């Protein structure tokens, strides 16, 4: 018996909550490379000025980071290849009180930090989802 084809949903908008933004992006000083990069990417996303290379997050990564229901973008958005994009945004699909689906911004940070004490963007996303680091 064939499965009924799932109906595709219209795209959900992207939301940058003020508290998430402060905790993730404004922890960097104004003018810091990471912050400028995040601010620029946000402007691009909000103005819809570019096709975005959305990528699903691993729901259960071997590092212990569990990010079900999440997708990500690598920054800078116009980087040629993932290796040229050292930072990332992570978003979670959320249903609002009026039953609207949105992609809520939950984490920003380095993908592969040189400093071993720096949390990766995936660890930060896991912390925000589960309340503790993986």
């Amino acid at each position, binding site marked *: 018996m064939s499965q009924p084809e799932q109906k595709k949903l219209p795209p959900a908008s992207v939301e940058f909550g003020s508290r998430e933004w402060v905790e993730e992006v404004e922890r960097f000083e104004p003018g810091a490379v990471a912050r400028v990069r995040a601010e620029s990417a946000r402007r691009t996303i909000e103005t819809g000025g570019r096709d975005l290379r959305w*990528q*699903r997050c691993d729901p259960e990564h071997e590092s212990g980071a569990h990010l079900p229901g999440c997708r990500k973008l690598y920054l800078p958005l116009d980087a040629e290849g993932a290796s040229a994009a050292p930072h990332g945004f992570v978003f979670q699909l959320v249903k609002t009180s009026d039953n609207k689906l949105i992609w809520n911004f939950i984490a920003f940070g380095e993908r592969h930090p040189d400093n*071993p004490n720096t949390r990766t963007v995936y660890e930060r996303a896991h912390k925000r989802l589960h309340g503790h680091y993986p």
Partner: protein
Amino acid sequence: MTAVSRGSKRSGGACFPNRVQAQATGTPWVALAPEKPLSRRIAIQPDTAGRIEPMATAVKKLDLEVGELVEVGGRRYEVVPSREGGVTLEPPITPVSELYAERGWKPASEEDFERLTADDLPPDGEG
């Protein structure tokens, strides 16, 4: 956890990265006292040259557990496990359970997620 204070001559705490290092790497930076220019910290007046007074050291011990919040210099930090098995202070990350409860939101269903990400690139094994 132990916070070390060295009176007015201290440079900002040797056990934490300084502000520039922290901003460059995204690691937490704990300002226990305002940083001063290096030239001001090591200046020796002519009449005291050759005599360096010992700095008073006061150790304030904090009995903190993972998950607790502390406020230092008007900024909040959360006690979290360090990678070395101890604890460290980091700017807090408010969990979505708290944020969504305030906003009346909830995580979407897996079915909705599958429908909305059908055209996404698959996971790349990174996280």
